Structure formats: C-alpha cells, structure tokens
C-alpha cells in the first residue's frame, strides 16, 4: 500500500561501481549464431534484388500487392496468387533523421530512415534509407528512386539497394 510503505527495495549502482570492482560483475559473450531460411517468398525477393528488381505478391481476392512479399494474404487468409514486378521507385510515407547507430552511439553523418511506399502498391511500404539529399530537404510524399549497388557488388540482400534518392523536388 503505497502510502504505508516507507522504503522500496532496490540498490542502484553507478557504472563506476562496476568498473572499479566495488561490486562484482561477470562479462559474457554468447555465441548465438543462426542460418535463417529465407523460404519461398523472401528467397525470391532477395534473389530479385540481386537482379535490381523489387517484387511483390498479389492477392486476387482483395487485389492488394504486398512487399516484402509473402506467399499468403494475411487479411484474406489464403494463398496469394502471383508475383508482380514493381518499380524501384516510390514515395516517402514517413521519415526520420538518425544521429545514432544501432547500439546508441553517436554517428557523424545523419542517416534518413524512411518508410517508402513502392509505386504501384496501395499500402506496401518498406523500411530503407534516403540519401543524396540534405535531411532538411526530405518531405512527406516526396518521390524517390532506388540507387543500386553495382551488379558485381550485389549479394541478394536488402542492402543491394544502397538507398533511395529524391527524383523530384
């Protein structure tokens, strides 16, 4: 009972308490390694990225084209019907300007993580970066186009697209 409790448990430490050994601490580096199966849908998606193509899957029942592709339509719950080769361009659905890396350390050149709605789809955005622009110039609804790695550099990964660049202002 909140008002009746005088002392709450918990012993806060400072980083220095650990560094200076005031409190014992134990480091551990796990080996957590995997080899993930891309499967039918993402397998083809990644293979096509190597060909500098973006592909989606279309459902005949609701007419929706999904990217990243999956072999089922989650809304109709049925196998979807066909592969669709999409344009490698789209519009900015939402964006941000990142000054930090994945581990929360600061980075010099800000990145522009963006959800890009691929042209020819109704709701299918993908996560990627926008580049070749001043972050201040990025706008909602701005048209962007994929900038691909050179063919010999492409491995069949989402990073085969280096980033998307604005194609009109």
């Amino acid at each position, binding site marked *: 009972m909140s008002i009746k409790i005088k002392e709450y448990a918990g012993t806060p430490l400072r980083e220095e308490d650990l560094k200076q050994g005031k409190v014992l601490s134990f480091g551990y580096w796990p080996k957590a390694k995997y080899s993930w199966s891309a499967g039918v849908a993402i397998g083809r998606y990644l293979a096509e990225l190597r060909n500098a193509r973006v592909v989606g899957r279309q459902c005949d029942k609701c007419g929706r084209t999904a990217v990243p592709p999956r072999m089922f339509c989650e809304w109709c719950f049925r196998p979807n019907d066909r592969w669709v080769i999409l344009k490698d361009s789209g519009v900015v659905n939402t964006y941000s300007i990142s000054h930090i890396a994945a581990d929360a350390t600061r980075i010099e050149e800000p990145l522009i993580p963006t959800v890009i709605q691929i042209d020819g789809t109704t709701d299918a955005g993908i*996560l990627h*970066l926008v580049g070749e622009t001043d972050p201040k110039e990025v706008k909602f609804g701005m048209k962007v186009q994929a900038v691909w790695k050179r063919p010999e550099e492409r491995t069949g990964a989402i990073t085969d697209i280096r980033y998307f660049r604005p194609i009109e202002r």
Partner: protein
Amino acid sequence: MKKRVAVVGAGMTKFMRRAQETGKELAYEAARMALDSCGLRIEDIGSVTMGSAPDAFDGVHMKGEYLIDGAGAWRKPYMRNYVGGGTGVFAPIHGWQHVASGLFDTCLVVCEEKMSSCRPHPQAAFLTIFDNLTERPLGPNLVWIFALEMHRYMHVHKIPKEKIAAVSVKNKRNAMDHPCAQLAQKITVEDVLNSEVLVWPVQRLDISPTSDGAAAVVLASEDVARKITDSPVWIDGVGWNLDTAYWTNRDLYYPQYVENAAKMAYQMAGIKNPRQEIDFAEPYDPFDYKELHHMEGLMLCGKGEAPDLAWEGVTQRDGKLPVCPSGGLLGVGNPIAAAGLMKICELFWQLRREAGKRQVPGDPKTAVAQAWGDLMQMGTVVVMRA
C-alpha cells in the same frame, strides 16, 4: 463471465538504471511486497504468471524459467506470458484468465526486467527485434521506428512538437511524487525542445530511460478477495490485440490495435462512453507522443485531439482527465514489463485512495491502464473499478 476478479495487493521495487540485485532478487522484492500488502503467504497463492520482455536484456535464455524461485513459483503452476512491451499489462490479463476461468482462487502476477545486463547498451538488444532478412541488414535502431511513427502522427495531424513535449514535462514532474522514480525532474517544454536530437523528431527528453526493476500484483476471485480486503479493486475489462508484423505496410498515424483492444475491454466492462466514464488513465508512455497516440486509441479523445488536451492542462493530475498521474515510464522509468505492471499498481493505489501525494483529486471510480508493444503492433488494455 465465470468469476469477477480483483486486485488485492501490489508491490514494486525502485526503478533504477542499474540494480545490484539479480533479476530473481528484484522479482522477489516486488512479489514479497505484494503479498505483504494484503497479508497473504505464499501457500495462499494458487498460480503464478510472469511477464518479462526480451531474454536479450537479462542475458538468460528461457529467462521465465530462471526467474521461477524469485517469483514465488516453487512447485506451483507457473507460466511466462510475452507480448513485447505490452507484456506489463498483458500479465494481469493472463492472471485474470487464471482466476476468471475458475481454475484458481488466487494468482500472483510478477513482472521483472534487468535491462542493464545487456551490453554495450540495452539499445543493442533492440536491433534483434527487426526482421532478420529484410530490416536488420540496414542497421536499424529502436528509436527509428518511434521517430517514423511520431513523424507520421505529427504530419497527419499537423502537431507542433511543443504540444508533445508537454507530456514529458508533465510526467517527469508527476514522478517527483513517486518514491520509486528514476527520472523525476522539473523541466520545461524548452528543455525538451533543446535536448539532444537522437532521431528526429525524437529528442533525449522525449524518451523514457532504460531501467532495472520489478512489480507484482495479487489477484483473487470475488469471494476470496472479499475475505482478504474491504477494498478490492476489480478488473472489470480486459482486451488485447496484435496488428500485422508488416509494420511498414500500415499507416502509423493511428494505433488501430489499441482501439480494438480498448473496445474489447470496454465492452466487457460495460463502458459505452469512455470519455465520460473513465476517471483517469495510465496509457503507455515510453515516448511522450505515445501517451497522446494511446489516449486516442483508447478513445479518450478524438484522433489528433490529444496534443491539445496535454497542452491545455486537461491531463494534469488535477485536470479534468488525469493521465499518467504516476509519472509514467517517462518519469518513473521503463523496465519494460515491470513498467506496464507499475501502471496496474498505480490504478490499484489510486482507486483505493492510497496514492499519497500522487492521489488524483475527486473520487475516482473507474480507470484504464494500457501498454503497447512489438513493432507498433500490440495493444493491451485493463479497466479497473474501485
């Protein structure tokens, strides 16, 4: 429903950036306090459910199993429920299922998080929540998705940043009255707007901290609850809902999953008009805009209206609709699952009028707590009544 279920006891630890206690010890302290608060012994507990977020924080695989003894589950029916950040409010829903099903008279609900074990920074664990094949290679940071969602929300409703910052100011100040708070401070809207930009539009003071901590509540069926206490607080509505994992395929401006979960909980609680019937709310606020987003999902106001309510002071503790009187995650701290359950503790204390300096004025009878989780996907909602 088979049985009405009440919260009869609650406990929590301090929320800390780094705790010396192990996860087991944190769980113990919270569970022990919850039992003591209602005068129960461990033998009186029929089952235990644990809520805890990724194993990658504590650094123990199958950490639900690791935490058994600290959670008081020795030789008891024990499970771990897990819906990402939504876990803290799902755990009491899972506990409610244990009791309302008629299987148990009592259930101890414990939530624990020891994020500080994760190195180099708890943020690093969040890289591993992204899709392993289509997103992780881009090196995403957790804050990215919040920034993307926040920006979309601001764009659609034309919300100025300062109205959002008002939430952070309010919650960090409310937390000054919370004895467990990690980041209670008196700050201004300008402080928020001038704080370090992490991922625009998210700045340092828009974010809750990473924390170690635990919380616990004791649930009991109606007949048992009335024997334990004169003032049980009833769990009258529960709802939970998960949207598609393809988060980039959705319009992030509105949390439909929260609305679905809220509708489920309100229907069960017989609430027709939440704006009239809810006396105060504890929506999930890991980021300041999230509180606003969730108020809208909880249908406590119209879409895009929440920022004005925050700006005009309606959501202050003494306002017409107090929101996060505890100080929320922004002020008290964010040991993921424990933070969600802290909100249930707050409802319990407030509805029993035991919240001390944090007590909302008037005579609150009905309140809602909510948590959110996964990739902008999961809504968990509990309605409680005095």
